[in-house]
């Protein structure tokens, strides 16, 4: 019983008998508890209807009242060969989101087709979607054979029709079985009603499916889910989506490219408390030998075999949103543990799943499939779905709702992979530069509310240090937004990107030997922590002027506008400010002149960066 169960989804057009087939399979394999059939007979009697096998899975009143499956359901059963998870999926077009919910976790499928009605719209759509979801093993059950008098000709006609359709999308069904789910024919064994059929029963067809190959042999992909600090250690948590992880491996983190060795794999209780390796599928927690900056959304991999990185990706998408999707739409894309703000820049093809034809451009209606190009502000780390499904698929979120999913075909305008970027060593060292300048390079990062006095203080500090012969410059919020960051707004994502760019530039200047003073509200702690992790010599200075005082000063009239609702997402008014927990310096401006604050900061900088001060110390 420790064998892993195989997941099978049953799909097909509404009313073609999926739930009935499921109920019958459960009955034939003895999976139903004692008294269940009698109980359902009673329920059907009360409703004045003949016995309905579908009621095994259709447990909702609305489903029983309307005689349709609304939502997907799962149940276990076993054959002599192995255990199964059977997933019943609704066939009604309106409930396609529920069909996908069921089908996406299956390893193989049974497509049910009514012998009398033949291949219908949802038969095709479901077949197409199974293929898109990556399911390659599909068996077909031609159901309700009793209604066509067990006609072999009719069976052959339906078989030919569905085989032709599936061939069009590159799928060959493993078996096509004539059945009557209601009568139990060809479910568990051969039926006397179809002497002309020599193939396997439905259960035998299921037993013929292969379990999906494990992704252990693919390159390591370990999306970071969280970083814990329960004690003094930083523990990185995530699930290995493919490959293997072992203590001593050098991990590279896409997209940052930072790397460190796995020091320990952590566990609590259980058989293996000194785990030194783990394989695909396992949720792990581990520590690193170096304090690099790691955060949720990054994908850990081994050097030389990282995922692709691209700002633009081409993908095949199924759209479940209530309104049609069009070019220009802005959505949230969730791939593994990363979230990206994306824009639909092209609707390349909308696919007609019935005719397998496609048209260029236009809108994507609900439940349609299309090929789209997304542009993301942040680089997306991924593998093509065909190479590594677990990190090649994503969902789309609009507001509070998941509105679609997709598989990545390829990156457009690929960026160099993170593991192909090698830092080149400078021949002029930091010490040489410091000796020439008389002070070290570094980043003095002022953070605080709008109106706190950051820019005023920074500019005056710059002037005074310059007069003393320092190599010094200021990066100011308003100024960079005219150029370096002119494409960014003030949403949390844009603020994060703004700070990331400024942080990178500041550290480059610092490496060039300059003392950089920055003046940015930088309200989010995580954004500032990320800048701290980018390089050496980062000093966080909290210009701790209170909100009331800032609002009283209101030098640019912004608080007034924000209070009037004219500025959305204004820090302190309609967006949060997260004060530093442990800054290097707090400038308390309350009751003090600008001069006093400037003097305090200049003294701090000289003490920390000036070579003569360091020598004196």
């Amino acid at each position, binding site marked *: 019983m420790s064998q892993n169960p195989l997941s099978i989804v049953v799909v097909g057009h509404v009313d073609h008998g999926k739930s009935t087939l499921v109920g019958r399979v459960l009955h034939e394999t003895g999976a139903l508890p004692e008294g269940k059939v009698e109980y359902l007979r009673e329920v059907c009697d009360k409703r004045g209807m003949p016995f309905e096998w579908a009621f095994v899975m259709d447990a909702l009143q609305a489903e029983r009242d309307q005689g349709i499956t609304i939502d997907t359901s799962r149940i276990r059963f076993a054959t002599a060969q192995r255990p199964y998870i059977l997933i019943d999926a609704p066939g009604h077009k309106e409930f396609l989101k529920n069909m996908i919910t069921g089908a996406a976790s299956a390893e193989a499928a049974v497509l049910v087709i009514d012998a009398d009605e033949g291949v219908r719209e949802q038969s095709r759509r479901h077949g197409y979607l199974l293929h898109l979801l990556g399911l390659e093993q599909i068996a077909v059950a031609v159901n309700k054979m009793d209604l066509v008098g067990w006609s072999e000709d009719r069976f052959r006609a339906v078989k030919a029709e569905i085989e032709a359709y599936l061939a069009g999308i590159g799928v060959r069904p493993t078996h096509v079985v004539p059945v009557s789910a209601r009568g139990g024919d060809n479910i568990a064994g051969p039926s006397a009603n179809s002497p002309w059929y020599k193939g396997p029963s439905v259960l035998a067809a299921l037993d013929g499916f292969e379990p999906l190959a494990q992704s252990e042999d693919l390159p390591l992909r370990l999306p970071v889910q969280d970083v814990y600090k329960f004690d003094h250690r930083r523990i990185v948590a995530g699930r290995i989506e493919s490959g293997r992880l072992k203590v001593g491996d050098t991990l590279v983190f896409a997209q940052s490219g930072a790397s460190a060795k796995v020091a320990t794999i952590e566990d*609590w209780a259980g058989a293996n408390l000194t785990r030194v390796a783990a394989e695909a599928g396992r949720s792990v927690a581990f520590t690193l030998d170096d304090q690099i900056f790691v955060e949720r959304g990054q994908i850990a991999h081994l050097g030389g075999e990282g995922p692709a990185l691209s700002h633009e990706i081409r993908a095949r998408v199924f759209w479940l949103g209530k309104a049609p999707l069009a070019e220009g739409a802005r959505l949230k894309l969730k791939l593994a543990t990363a979230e990206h703000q994306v824009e639909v820049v092209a609707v390349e093809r909308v696919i007609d799943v019935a005719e397998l034809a496609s048209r260029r451009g236009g809108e994507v209606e609900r439940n349609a499939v299309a090929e789209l190009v997304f542009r993301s502000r942040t680089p997306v780390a991924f593998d093509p779905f065909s190479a590594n499904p677990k990190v090649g698929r994503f969902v789309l979120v609009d507001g509070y709702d998941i509105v679609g999913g997709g598989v990545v075909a390829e990156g457009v305008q690929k960026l160099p992979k993170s593991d192909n970027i090698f830092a080149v060593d400078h021949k002029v060292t930091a010490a040489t530069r410091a000796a020439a300048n008389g002070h070290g390079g570094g980043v003095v990062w002022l953070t605080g509310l709008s109106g706190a006095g950051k820019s005023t203080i920074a500019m005056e500090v710059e002037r005074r240090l310059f007069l003393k012969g320092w190599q010094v410059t200021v990066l100011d919020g308003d100024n960079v937004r005219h150029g370096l960051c002119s494409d960014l707004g003030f949403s949390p994502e844009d603020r994060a990107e703004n700070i990331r760019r400024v942080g990178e530039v500041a550290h480059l200047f610092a490496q060039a030997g300059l003392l950089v003073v920055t003046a940015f509200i930088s309200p989010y702690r995580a954004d500032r922590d990320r800048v701290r992790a980018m390089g050496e010599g980062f000093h966080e200075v909290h210009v701790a002027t209170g909100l009331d005082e800032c609002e009283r000063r209101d030098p640019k009239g912004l608080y007034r506008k924000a209070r009037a609702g004219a500025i959305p997402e204004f820090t302190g008014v309609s967006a949060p400010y997260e004060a530093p927990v442990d800054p290097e310096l707090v400038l308390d401006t309350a009751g003090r002149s600008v001069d006093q604050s400037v003097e305090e900061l200049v003294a701090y900088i000289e003490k920390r960066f000036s070579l003569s001060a360091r020598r004196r110390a």
Partner: protein
Amino acid sequence: MNDLDVLESQSIHIFREAFNRLDKIAMLWSIGKDSNVMLWLAKKAFLGHVPFPVIHVDTTHKIPEMIAFRDRVAREWDLPMIVGKNEAALAAGMGPGQGRVTCCSALKTEGLKQVLSEHGFTGVFAGIRRDEEGTRAKERVFSPRNEQAEWDVRDQPPEFWDQFKTDFAPGTHLRIHPLLAWTELDVWRYIRREGIPVVELYFAKDGRRYRSLGCAPCTGSIESTASTVDEIIAELATTKVSERSGRAQDKESEDAFERLRAGGYM
């Protein structure tokens, strides 16, 4: 990895997603075997820590051994525990005499809602499983509840590829179900493998044992001689009696349980 390893890793993944994505979370602890397994998995996910409170909704009708067990484990594991009671309903004399479903709604569902709104929880872990019952078989892992804690079973969000619904309107909350994919047999095999403590009521005494635990008036024991975890596993491998057969509130009418759950029951 064997099947229990797969289930364990999946549950840990769910715990970690909820912990990362939601601000204020808590875990329902019914004292039954499933919620003890859930608690164990939380400790696995967070390396021995339980970084959120556990909630026990006390109907005051629980079997006394359950409360003794609760207090012992809470002490030994140093659990941050919140005990919720619908005091108003209890003061008014609510009990199964007023109708089992009415009583469940008042003391469990309403009691739970009071705790959730008092503390402002936006995510709550519940140890339900698909194999228990037909409407639970249709559940999502991250299952939204509206402002009234109601479950809209006719319009559940899509959920696939382990990308869960973690965006939701203010005032609504999520039920998170880390054990949804487990079966009763999986739970007992895992209890055996890990040595997880469970209430003695599950083990046969004088030819009877409890298979599912709830309130004393509505929970019946079954005939059984299984007095160890191994014997329970052997019994379950062959039984054809359903797990909740001893739970009277499920059976008041065809849709009793669906109505309970749509109203906010676990």
